[in-house]
């Protein structure tokens, strides 16, 4: 027996409230420190048939009103007191229920902690009535502390624990009433890691410790400041949760940290979930029970279960719950949150006994969180808008804690499923999925992730052995089709998205209540958890509350609060899920995802076949982004924030981020609604509650009653299970926030990319990993998630050799990767399709690549198109021009047709003659004496055939000074002067022309092309002349 006294901490809720909510909130199960603290806030916690349980795990009574041990029991310390010794608190540890009395019956006169007479009467031997007239704490006239002496100890208690079976009064615990000695208190709370460095504490999280070795502020025990919020009173460094502290000493705390205990009404959710808060009591020595006194450190903030759980909880072999209902029952009917982490190898070893995980005392129980923690989540959401359920509660392995890791999971489920979690395969859920795709199993004797199958079995056996069998976890079990219970998406993703989808087996658990309305369980994982809880602007209340999460069951057995009556569309029509979203929109219909087949998608339910059975949902919750006045969801004329057409469909399905958002939510006006359609007897009332979704609009949450088997397969087939948020109301009703994508869509609509399953299983896979299955991918080998297909043929743009022209045959004669129908050189390989002139033919096959000539006319058939042929009427494939080197620069007239092959005398403009009708051209070049020699090389004015000489000069001289347009030149003054315009410039025959003449003097005319310009009578070049000239050369001296 140690010196410290033990005091019990009782938490008892108000009787009225408790009785009214007996089936709603009977238990909170909160693991703290090295013990598992249960606070029975329900008068019926010792239910008939269940009774209460002692710290040793024994059932103390089946009697609901049986007074059980109310103990805070450090190991080896007194577990029950004796009022007769006179050695009360201060000398001997004793358990004393605050506000409790003693039984005054003869047989057990010294039993303390009674809260009512029945508890004494029903105690073994009978103890008469409960004397509540005295109290050492001031509540009663006199106390029993002085009469308390230790009568026994609980050697099994590693640290301390409290087992409370309540009565109608609050049950409290105090450390040391006299404050003269250290006592023990109980801390309720936890630490939430929000991902940042260090820890973050949140208000209202309950007591913590602030130790002092010599407490000196010990106000009398009293309910201080009730019902104020709980403040995190844990000073930095006082929390011992590191391995170094291990099972270190109980940390003293000041009594001033003790606060009230009793009902606590949260400003927003209290009326709903009836939060009961407990705070530290204890005047002097106050244990940081939540973090410091874990028998095995380095695992969690919480929970070393000291209950003799039977069956084992956690890392034990899978057992079907049969008789022992201790541990899991602690969470019975309540809200449970579950999170955990893999055990370290050392822990595995430590917790292994006889080849199996053992419990207690070393069972590493997951942390059941109560509504108090639920509230903490809300608070966390307030503190951090990005927080919410995603708050991965993870700690303990290191002194500074750590952020949530890959294998950490956080899940929420109704406590009813807590049983199933334990029953099914807690290993999987605690540990989450493995790190790698395919690691969807757990070894049967350890936390190691594995891939179910032979290889996985072998992997489990690798030292340190985790067993011999890799057990698949959490799949849609079916005895025939999926005996291993492989999860959806097995071997394709294998992450924890599907983890904790507890509902998948609900229907298979015999003996469970039929009315388990948990159609969907949630799992936010470390990988995809996201903030969900946000206050909806304009909604009543200014803080995040359950209204922000969805409709809340305000009463028993169903959604009520916030959910209106009725069951049809507001516009009186029925929603046909399969109907097109709207004109131009994509049809929304259901399809099987995991081997099942949708039979029908009704407006208020849908049927689904699976494993030979056909299941019809009892109800379906259909969310839609508001129909506007026209009553048509998301169509023209609706709220401006609602997209139209196909975009509206995408918006509706949460597939687009388009559209206005407000505070992270799609702002679709006030038309948002959640419509619940009902069928059958299990119908639910319809709802028009407001929903807003941060990331996406959910589509349908369908509920399959417990009679459906397997029910949730249908549900998961209905939509991707990723990022599903679950919020649990009280006992069984849940609130579901779904950030999901309806999947899959049928027809040609875009398919969903799921993270929880392979959407292409059985569909040929998805070789290009673009999210479109092979069987429907218009580019199976090229990633094109958009499936854009401009020409509408069978191939997407990304792999279409003619993306703009339909060509299903993809013919490509020149094998240049450009299909024939869009190839600008279909017979010449030109993958670049270069086309400088922009005509219809690519450069590679264009006879005039630089000049647009769609007709490709080539009169001389020399392979050079007319429009770019320097001799369009004379075949000259080589296009030689100025080949002799004397025509500088080349005049653009091919040598084959040039009337001056050594002189630059380009063709005149095409309109030259029309404005200069005195001129004469051959082949488009000036040749005003039309002898086939261009002016610039023709000084032979006399056609004498001789060299240019004096006779020609004689003709030139009288022409000097004359206008070239006249016919007044030559010796007789009758020659066309143009023939003397040798420089082809200037209006007058002048010195420039004389200069040309002098250069020609003494030479023969020309030269000109020899083939076609061989004589005046055989000029083949086209000869054109204005009115002043003639193409018939007649020389008159």
């Amino acid at each position: 027996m140690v010196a410290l006294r033990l005091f019990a901490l009782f938490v008892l809720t108000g009787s009225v409230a408790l009785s009214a909510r007996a089936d709603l909130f009977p238990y909170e199960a909160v693991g703290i420190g090295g013990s598992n603290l249960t606070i029975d806030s329900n008068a019926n916690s010792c239910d008939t048939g269940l009774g209460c349980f002692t710290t040793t795990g024994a059932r103390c009574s089946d009697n609901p009103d049986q007074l059980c041990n109310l103990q805070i029991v450090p190991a080896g310390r007194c577990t029950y007191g004796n009022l007769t010794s006179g050695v009360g608190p201060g000398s001997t540890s004793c358990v004393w229920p605050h506000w409790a009395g003693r039984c005054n019956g003869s047989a057990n006169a010294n039993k303390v902690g009674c809260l009512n007479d029945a508890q004494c009467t029903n105690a073994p031997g009978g103890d008469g009535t409960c004397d509540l007239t005295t109290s050492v704490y001031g509540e009663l006239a006199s106390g029993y502390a002085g009469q308390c002496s230790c009568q026994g100890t609980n050697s099994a208690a590693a640290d301390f624990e409290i087992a409370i079976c309540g009565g109608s009064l609050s049950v409290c615990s105090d450390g040391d009433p006299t404050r003269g000695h250290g006592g023990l208190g109980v801390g309720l709370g936890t630490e939430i890691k929000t991902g940042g460095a260090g820890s973050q504490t949140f208000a209202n999280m309950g007591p913590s410790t602030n130790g002092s070795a010599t407490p000196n502020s010990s106000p009398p025990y009293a309910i201080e400041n009730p019902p104020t919020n709980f403040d995190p009173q844990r000073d930095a460094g006082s929390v011992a949760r590191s391995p170094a502290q291990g099972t270190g000493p109980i940390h003293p705390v000041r009594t001033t940290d003790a606060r009230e205990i009793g009902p606590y009404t949260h400003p927003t959710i209290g009326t709903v979930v009836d939060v009961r808060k407990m705070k530290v009591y204890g005047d002097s020595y106050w244990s940081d029970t939540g973090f410091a006194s874990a028998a095995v450190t380095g695992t969690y903030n919480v929970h070393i279960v000291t209950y003799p759980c039977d069956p084992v909880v956690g890392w034990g072999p899978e057992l079907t719950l049969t008789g022992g209902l201790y541990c899991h029952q602690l969470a019975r009917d309540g809200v449970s949150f579950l999170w955990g982490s893999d055990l370290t190898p050392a822990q595995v070893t430590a917790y292994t006994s006889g080849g199996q995980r053992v419990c207690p005392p070393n069972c590493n129980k997951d942390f059941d969180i109560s509504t108090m923690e639920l509230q903490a989540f809300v608070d966390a959401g307030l503190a951090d808008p990005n927080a919410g359920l995603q708050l991965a509660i993870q700690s303990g392995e290191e002194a500074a804690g750590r952020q949530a890791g890959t294998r950490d999971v956080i899940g929420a489920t109704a406590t009813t499923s807590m049983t199933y979690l334990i029953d099914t395969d807690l290993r999987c859920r605690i540990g989450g999925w493995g790190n790698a795709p395919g690691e969807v199993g757990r070894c049967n004797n350890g936390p190691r992730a594995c891939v179910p199958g032979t290889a996985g079995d072998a992997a489990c056996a690798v030292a340190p052995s985790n067993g011999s069998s890799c057990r698949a976890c959490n799949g849609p079990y079916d005895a025939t089709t999926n005996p291993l219970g492989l999860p959806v998406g097995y071997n394709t993703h294998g992450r924890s998205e599907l983890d904790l989808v507890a509902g998948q087996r609900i229907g298979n658990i015999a003996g469970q209540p039929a009315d388990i309305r948990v159609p969907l369980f949630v799992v936010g994982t470390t990988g995809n958890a996201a903030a969900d809880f946000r206050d909806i602007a304009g909604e009543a209340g200014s803080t995040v509350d359950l209204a922000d999460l969805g409709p809340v069951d305000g009463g028993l057995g169903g959604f009520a609060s916030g959910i209106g009556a009725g069951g049809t569309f507001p516009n009186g029509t029925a929603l046909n899920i399969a109907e097109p979203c709207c004109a131009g929109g994509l049809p929304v219909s259901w399809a099987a995802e995991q081997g099942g087949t949708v039979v029908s998608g009704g407006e208020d339910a849908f049927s689904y076949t699976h494993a030979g059975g056909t299941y019809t949902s009892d109800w379906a919750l259909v969310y839609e982004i508001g129909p506007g006045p026209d009553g048509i969801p998301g169509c023209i004329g609706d709220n401006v924030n609602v997209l139209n057409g196909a975009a509206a469909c995408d918006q509706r399905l949460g597939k687009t981020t388009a559209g206005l958002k407000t505070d992270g939510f799609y702002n679709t006006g006030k038309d948002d609604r959640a419509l619940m359609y009902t069928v059958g007897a299990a119908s639910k009332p319809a709802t028009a509650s407001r929903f807003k979704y941060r990331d996406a609009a959910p589509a349908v949450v369908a509920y399959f009653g417990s009679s459906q088997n397997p029910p949730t397969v249908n549900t998961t087939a209905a939509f991707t299970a990723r990022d599903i948020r679950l919020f649990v109301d009280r006992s069984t009703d849940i609130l579901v926030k779904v950030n999901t994508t309806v999947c899959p869509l049928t027809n040609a609509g875009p398919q969903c990319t799921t993270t929880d399953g392979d959407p292409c299983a059985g569909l040929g896979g998805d070789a290009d990993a673009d999210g479109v299955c092979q069987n429907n991918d218009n580019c199976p080998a090229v990633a094109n998630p958009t499936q854009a297909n401009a020409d509408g043929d069978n191939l997407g743009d990304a792999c279409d050799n003619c993306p703009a022209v339909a060509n299903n045959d993809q013919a490509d004669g020149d094998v240049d990767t450009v299909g024939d129908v869009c190839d600008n050189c279909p017979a010449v390989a030109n993958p670049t399709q270069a086309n400088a002139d922009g005509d219809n033919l690519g450069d590679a096959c264009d006879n005039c690549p630089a000049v647009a000539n769609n007709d490709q006319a080539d009169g001389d058939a020399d392979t050079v198109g007319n429009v770019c042929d320097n001799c369009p009427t004379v075949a000259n494939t080589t296009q030689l021009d100025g080949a002799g080197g004397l025509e500088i620069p080349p005049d653009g007239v091919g040598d084959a047709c040039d009337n001056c092959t050594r002189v630059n005398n380009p063709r005149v403009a095409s309109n030259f003659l029309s404005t200069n009708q005195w001129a004469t051209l051959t082949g488009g070049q000036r040749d005003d004496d039309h002898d086939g020699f261009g002016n610039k090389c023709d000084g032979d004015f006399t056609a004498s055939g001789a060299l240019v000489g004096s006779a020609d000069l004689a003709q030139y001289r009288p022409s000097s000074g004359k206008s070239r347009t006249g016919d007044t030149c030559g010796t007789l003054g009758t020659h066309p002067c143009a023939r003397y315009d040798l420089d082809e410039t200037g209006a007058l025959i002048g010195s420039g022309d004389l200069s040309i003449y002098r250069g020609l003097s003494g030479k023969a005319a020309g030269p000109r092309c020899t083939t076609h310009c061989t004589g005046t009578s055989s000029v083949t070049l086209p000869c054109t002349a204005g009115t002043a000239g003639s193409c018939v050369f007649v020389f008159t001296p």
Partner: protein
Amino acid sequence: MKKLLAVVALAAGLVLGSAANAAQIDIFLTEVAGNNWQLTVDNNGAANLGAVNLLTSGNLTVMTLNPLNTGISVGDSSFTIDPLSIGLNFAIISNASAAGTIAAASAQDVLLATFASTGGPVTLEGPEVQAGQDAVFDNNLVAILDYSITVVPIPPVPEPASVVLLGLGLAALGFVRRSA
């Protein structure tokens, strides 16, 4: 005011006594007595002058080549009255051959031709202005682009009032200088 008068008078005197003389080849058409005009050239460049093509207006009627200039070819030279019917006459003074010259490089003006006139003002310009043809050529009849053309009519006899004005200007200028 006195300063202004002096400046005006000085400017007038400078204009009257100046002549353009900055180009490689300077061509002058100078009026002489009896309504005759003399076409002279001052070849300041390095190249010989091969030909001159000019357009004139006014009442020039006959061009008479300088018979003393042996470089001029009568056969290659011509004076055509308004060949383009635009009121401009075309005068060509060309050398006898590619080897000949009509004006060697010299600082002295060379008389090319004399024009008879019926009186009145005369203009002279290069044909390129009207016809896109070059005006001055070298010995090979390659165009020389650096040339100037100046018409110098007989200076009018100053009227008495003008003489007085000039005198006042000069006096004013002297006064200003003394004042300065």
